Every structure is written in structure tokens, then in C-alpha cells.
């Protein structure tokens, strides 16, 4: 079945430094949809980014990610971390027409002053 790997469980950075959260996936289907969800404390998880287009950069709220099907990756990046970016970030995968959405284990990002 499908799987999503987020190898960093915890990432701690100083404000102003670049952010990169890794996400790789496995699926037998070629029509993969990849997502990044963000879960702030005391809020519901919500969608941050999504993409199904190979090698196309997608951006939202200062974050960006590019789906690379050749390497099965969808890494989340931001040029300069802010204190308010502290949250739990999930990478997720589905396929066209599939109701099953597979989540990675999540990466807890903590930004320090």
C-alpha cells in the first residue's frame, strides 16, 4: 500500500533560519497527490500546500514545495523561519479517485528566538 515517510520527528530552529522538512512517499500509482497539512496547538489541522504536478513549485503563506516524482519527494521549505511557524507538519498522499489519504508520522517544528 501507499506510505509516507517524514524522517525528522522533531526539528528545532532559530528564528530567521531556513526551514526544510523532508517528505518522501511510495505508491504504485502514477497520479499521486501530495499535501502538507499544518496543525497548530489548540487548532484543527489545515491544508498548507498541495500538488499533483511534477516539478512544479507550489507556494502558500511563505512556504513552498515541489513534487518530484522521479525521487518521490515533496519537501516543505521556507526561506526564513518565524516564531509563529511552530507547529506539527504532516505530509500526506492520495491518488486520483482514491478516498484513502495516507499521512506521514508528522514533524514537530519548534522555532526559537
Amino acid at each position, binding site marked *: 500500500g501507499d506510505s509516507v515517510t517524514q524522517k525528522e520527528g522533531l526539528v528545532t530552529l532559530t528564528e530567521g533560519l531556513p526551514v526544510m522538512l523532508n517528505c518522501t512517499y511510495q505508491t504504485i500509482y502514477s497520479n499521486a*497527490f501530495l*499535501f502538507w*497539512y499544518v496543525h497548530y496547538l489548540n*487548532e*484543527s*489541522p*489545515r*491544508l498548507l500546500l*498541495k500538488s499533483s504536478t511534477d516539478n512544479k513549485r507550489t507556494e502558500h503563506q511563505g512556504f513552498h514545495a515541489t513534487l518530484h516524482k522521479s525521487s518521490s519527494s515533496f519537501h516543505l521549505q521556507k526561506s526564513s523561519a518565524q516564531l509563529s511557524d511552530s507547529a506539527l507538519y*504532516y505530509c*500526506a498522499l*492520495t491518488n*486520483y*479517485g*482514491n*478516498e*484513502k*489519504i*495516507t*499521512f*506521514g*508520522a*508528522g514533524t514537530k517544528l519548534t522555532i526559537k528566538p
Partner: protein
Amino acid sequence: AQTIHQWPVAEIKAVGSPLSLGCTIKGKSSPNLYWYWQATGGTLQQLFYSITVGQVESVVQLNLSASRPKDDQFILSTEKLLLSHSGFYLCAWSRGANTGQLYFGEGSKLTVL
């Protein structure tokens, strides 16, 4: 605007006792509905989904069941709780599988003792 409401916010239950968690979506007709579970320190795991009233598909067997008695309601239940049922339960809706975008409720925290 669409809203999603989960109840109860938190429950403390004894092993072997029954459980019922509920979810209601307002402002969207015929949504796709989902139940997710997150064990403490674990990832979001999809349990069930429903495309239409009266039809529920199981994704993971955890000795739980789900029902969709009305278009806007999704119920998660079991007759006998296990210790392993403890965790955080999230209900979500989407406009369809192809969009992949989930809108989550605020969750129900379950502690089984």
C-alpha cells in the same frame, strides 16, 4: 460557510465500556466524511470514510465501527473499548477524493483506563 463540530471534546472511559463519538457538518451537502485516529505520539491514521448516507468503508480494523445516519452526520462507535483505543479522534470532510483537501474538526480526546 461550512462548519464541522465534533462531540464530545473529551471522554474518560473504562475498558469494556461502550463509546460513541459524533461529528456534524453544516453548510455543505453530500460531503465526503472521514474518521481519523491519532495515538499519542503517532500519526494520523484513516479509519473510515463515507461518500454517501448509509455507506461507510473501513480502512483500518480497530474494533470500531462507523455509521452515517444522515447526510451531515458521522458516528464512530464501539460496544467494548480497549486500552489501545485511547488517542485523539478527528472527523474531517472533503468535497471529493480528487481534491484531496480535508477540513478537520477540532477532535475528541479519548482516554481509556
